[in-house]
């Protein structure tokens, strides 16, 4: 059973969509008006925000902090809902593009809603503490934040509005003929008992493969050879809408929004759910085009649930491990994030989780040149029901992905958590139902707002810690200083000028990967003067032995990058007099200008 849970979880994460019944597709499309007015700021994190409240919260933040925020509609979703992004920047300290950019998104999978709350919390925290807390103020003054709380706006809308299970409504609302029968989205699950949840169906069957757990009347366990069965599990709530002998095999969608990005995209027979072509998702394409204009994005975070993981790329082995200097940066940041969010593990996507093609992490890393992390929030251990002196249960079955995702927490444990900490709200006890095809059955099991979602009382802790991971990495965005270390007169109007670019933070001014793939120009260091001419210029390999790698053409312009916690030094031979200007221009580390007298 544990092995089974692991595998089911794993497959659910991979691709399975067992989506809800056909929803009124126009309901709420484009609607931004709130159902209920929001309380004043700060925002509360003891509940989850339906999509319209997310929009409203963003508007409230924007209205409250107009000087620091810009709220933009990046584009429209496949069903026409606005995809909103908030930029946090202090224009008094310079334009957003002139500072290191931190990109944060959430809820790209429609059901993985916590990301939306983490993004809102981060915004609320940064803005609310600006001018109050010195560190936050300094961070906001030198960094721009690009925050997209809900990427899959249609998914979030339908997850709240429609009957669902915890894993459904993950995908984009792109009609897809999942069962390949020429009819589209014609047989999704049905909320037979009308309780707003898609639960499980079971039928009493002496030949069934399951029996009631002897310790708890709710879960079932597989029968052992020779034992009498009690139950056959019929799958999720639903009927055979199209009469093809299958139940719930073609629900709304399904294109996985995190497999449809342009980098390393693969067709659906290679990568399930990838969509007919890269950026088939209209909102995704708009978002990608929007982020492409944010050339300063140096760090990217994208929030998912669940399992308690801080993942870095590559997402696929064949894409190739990142260059060693980048790995060192990831390790530094990732290991610290593990401590900030206890119970989370810092892992490599393809190696420790699974292979994906066309995901947004790889897009951020490979085409934007950012350092990207995916956080799979909410480890299963959060729902352990165990005293401090009690031994942890043995890990579930064999070690592996399933065990990692289930965290060694059994269904019995989780039911006790439901009983004693959630007052039974996470699980529907089995109730009889008359099914048109199966006759007398029972419906029950975990409800929509369970399993992958933290109970609201734990939400505040979850959003705070994850936001702090973002803030830790943001603090490590490159902070480059420029110093003219030496001006030495060599006679005959000739001067030797030495410069130093130093980075006091962990993240380099350009990733080694971006340099390797030549995706955008490197940082530029330029020496100019009205009455001065640069005769030679180059990188100082050794200042003591005077080993300079001179650049033959255009010596006044040097292409460079500044490593994390490191420096680069250049030497110029300048002929002339008066003032010279040394300027540094970096996509990720901003611009600096210094002037110095030749004397």
């Amino acid at each position, binding site marked *: 059973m544990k092995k089974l849970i692991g595998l089911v979880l794993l497959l659910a994460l991979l691709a399975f969509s067992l989506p809800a019944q*056909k929803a009124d597709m126009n309901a709420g499309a484009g609607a931004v008006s709130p159902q209920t007015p929001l309380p004043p700021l700060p925002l509360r994190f003891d509940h989850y925000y339906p999509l319209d409240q997310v929009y409203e919260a963003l508007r409230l933040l924007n209205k409250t902090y107009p000087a620091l925020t810009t709220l933009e509609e990046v584009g429209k979703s496949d069903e026409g809902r606005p995809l909103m992004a908030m930029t946090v920047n202090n224009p008094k300290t310079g334009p957003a593009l002139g500072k290191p950019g931190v990109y944060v998104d959430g809820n790209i999978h429609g059901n993985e809603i916590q990301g939306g709350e983490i993004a809102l919390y981060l915004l609320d925290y940064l803005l609310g503490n600006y001018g109050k807390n010195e560190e936050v103020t300094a961070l906001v003054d030198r960094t721009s934040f690009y925050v997209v709380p809900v990427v899959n706006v249609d998914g979030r809308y339908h997850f709240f509005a429609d009957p669902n299970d915890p894993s459904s409504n993950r995908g984009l609302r792109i009609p897809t003929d999942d069962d390949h029968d020429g009819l589209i989205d014609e047989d999704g699950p049905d909320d037979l008992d009308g309780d707003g949840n898609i639960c499980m169906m079971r039928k009493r069957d002496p030949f069934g493969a399951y029996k009631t757990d002897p310790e708890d009347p709710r879960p079932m366990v597989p029968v052992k050879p020779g034992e009498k069965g009690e139950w056959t599990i019929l*799958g999720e709530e639903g009927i055979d809408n199209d009469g093809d002998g299958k139940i719930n095999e073609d629900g709304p969608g399904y294109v996985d929004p995190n497999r449809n990005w342009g980098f390393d995209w693969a067709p659906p027979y290679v990568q399930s759910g990838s969509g007919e072509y890269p950026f088939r998702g209209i909102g995704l394409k708009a978002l990608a085009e929007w982020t492409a204009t944010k050339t300063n994005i140096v760090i990217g975070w994208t929030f998912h649930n669940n399992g308690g993981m801080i993942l870095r790329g590559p997402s696929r082995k064949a894409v190739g491990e990142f260059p060693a200097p980048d790995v060192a940066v990831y390790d530094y940041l990732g290991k610290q994030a593990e401590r900030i969010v206890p119970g989370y593990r810092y892992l490599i996507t393809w190696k420790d989780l699974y292979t994906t093609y066309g995901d947004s992490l790889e897009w951020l890393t490979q085409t934007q040149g950012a350092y990207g992390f995916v956080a799979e929030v909410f480890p299963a251990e959060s729902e352990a029901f165990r005293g401090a002196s009690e031994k942890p249960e043995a890990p579930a079955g064999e070690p592996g992905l399933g065990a990692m995702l289930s965290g060694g927490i059994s269904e019995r444990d989780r039911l006790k958590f439901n009983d004693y900490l959630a007052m039974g709200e996470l699980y529907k006890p089995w109730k009889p139902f008359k099914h048109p095809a199966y006759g007398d059955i029972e419906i029950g099991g975990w409800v929509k707002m369970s399993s992958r979602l933290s109970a609201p009382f734990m939400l505040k802790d979850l959003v705070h810690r994850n936001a702090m991971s973002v803030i830790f990495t943001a603090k490590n965005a490159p902070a480059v200083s420029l110093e003219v270390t030496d001006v030495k007169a060599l006679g005959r109007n000739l001067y030797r000028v030495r410069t130093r670019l130093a980075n006091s933070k962990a993240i380099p001014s350009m990733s080694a990967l971006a340099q390797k793939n030549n995706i955008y120009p490197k940082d530029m260091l330029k020496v100019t003067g009205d009455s001065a001419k640069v005769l030679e210029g180059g990188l100082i390999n050794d200042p003591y032995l005077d080993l300079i790698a001179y650049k033959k053409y255009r010596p006044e312009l040097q292409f460079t990058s500044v490593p994390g916690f490191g420096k680069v030094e250049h030497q110029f031979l300048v002929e002339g007099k008066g003032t010279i200007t040394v300027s540094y221009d970096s996509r990720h580390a901003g611009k600096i200008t210094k002037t110095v007298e030749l004397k």
Partner: protein
Amino acid sequence: MNHSQRVLTPGRLALICLLSLTLQFSDASQPAAAAQASAAQKPAPAPQPPASPSSLSFDRYHAPAELNAALLDMARANPGFVRAQSLAKSPGGRELLLLEIGPEIGKTAHSPQPTNLANAEQIAASAKSLPAVFIAANMEGTVPLSSEAALYLARLILQKPELRSDRTWYILPCGNPDADSLFFTKPLRQDPRNFKPHNDDMDDQVDEDGPEDLNGDGIISTMRVKDPEGEWMPVPGQPRLLKRADWAKGEKGIYKLYSEGIDNDGDGLYNEDGLGGVNVGTNFPHLFKFFGPDSGAWPGSEAESFSLMKFMDEHREVGLTFVFGETNFCLNPPRGGRKGQADLNQIKIPERIASAFGADPARTYTMAEIMEMVKPLIPPGMDVTESMIAGFLELGAVVNPLDDDLKFYKELSEKFKEFLKTNKLDGKRLDPPPDKDGSFELWSYYHLGLPSFALDFWTLPEVKEEKAPEAITADQLEKMTKDEFLALGEEKIDAFLKAAGAPEQFKAKQVIEMVKGGQLDPKKMAEMMKQMPKPPSAEGADPKEKALLAWSDKELGGKGFVDWKPFKHPQLGDIEIGGPVPYADNTPPPAMIEGLLKGQVPWVFEVAKKMPRIKIASVEAKSIGQGVYEIKVRVENTGALPYPTAMARRNERILPVIVTLEGPGIKIVDGKKRTLIPAIPGFATQTATWIIQSDKPVKVEVKAETQIAWRDARTLELGGVK
């Protein structure tokens, strides 16, 4: 900046000179044509006198705007069955106009919205029922002849109603109009990139260092500069051609080569960052090359390519594609031999997954075995497909044509060669270049699962190699006696000396005297020969350039190759400018266009005839009493091509044949209302059976439906309970 419109007239003139064609079109037509093209977007184009397709002439090449104007003329003249629509606008501001010809131009084929059984019928009624053929021409924009071929094809279809009675034709004459415009622009240069700004050299400026026509001949050719570090040398015997010096042959380079121009940005590089961004022709997802200099950031990054991916998704009626360009899948089947393709009969399961599956990571499994392993682990209600498992195990993409599909490619290749022979176009010519990674033709086969064909229409004739006179080798010489050597005679000895690379003054007469006089003998000569530097060889010369030179001298009066002439370069000093003329190797003189197209374009119709065609061969009803009948429907594919390709069976992109049975009040006892037949090979038949019951006499309608292989229906009358 629109290059072609800025310097249009001189560009054309240069071309006209170059290919010695007669001037047929007036330059004033260009702005008018452009205006017409931009009218394509508007719902009601300004009324124009209808132009009959016969006014099209194929004695010249048509610039992008003229191609569009021709399509609009066709649509205007034939509103009942021709439509022109704009797919996208290139970064250079040129419309990609798509021509649609067929009986269903009024019907949309767009993806239906979320639906259920209730509106399925309605959607089916508005969707196209006939299959379509898609022709994508000049995707790299470097092959003007391919655009002419597309126009020619359109004219043939307009002229012959029988060609358009039962299918839709989509014809895109130019998928990369920015690049194509270069052919009509002075100075003449060839570049497959569209005009999206791109910082090729990753410096502080964009598109700042393109080529210049220094010698003012209207052509961007090659600069050769004498340089001790040069890698290039003249080809012995053909001093106009250059080859890379091979040190192993004792060769030393004397030239550096650059394209014609100056170093505008002073970085020591010449023409390294000119106008041009992405090669549209290689911007499709199959084997897309990331980080290539002209690849684009992702497959579909360009408006041109993205619009085509979107179109193909929305138009599932397309069942066959042709690319007109430089490759030829009709002559040579798509190539295989790429590494890294998973064998579905020998799959290894990684250790970390094997335990969950209960599998042995050390051995291999078939896909069917893995499916069996996974099924019991999956709760009911979940479906597992091969593609899901393949994705999970990272089996990756198919990269070589599947054997079943190669069968039809090979068969059609033989037939095409006969076709060319009949049309007297089977002369020996250079091989068309192989398919490119990221191309439309590969995407169409591997991702869309369609029979994907490509046609080129011309390459340079093969040069007949003159056999070098047989020279005597050192080894042979060593074994010769004096007399045997002298018996060769003066002529042969001279030839041998020349071949051996002996100094000029070393003549046969002298050598004969020396051998006679005993100062020299064959053995000694063999030793000397072995010590001598190897003679320069013509090996390493580009066969295409050789063929071009021969073609230029013979057919173009030398206009295909610029003779090297000295030039004073502002930065490089004394140089020479010359070399191959762009397009001369892939674009024949206009007088040849019609002949080449007439004999090759109709092959498209031969292939189109072989498209799979689904028919109901027979419907049988056997009464088994009490109004119960066994219904047997035989569904056949009367086409030669399979329904669908093996690739489509692998990637599951093409729907099965859907066979339905409907009649008022009938009850299906056994069988499904929608019976799915996944595949029917060429000329093959498959059977679907039902048991139904009807108390009353009833008419039962049997339908077999496909999106790309037509559809068929039959009515069956049943007597009911008597």
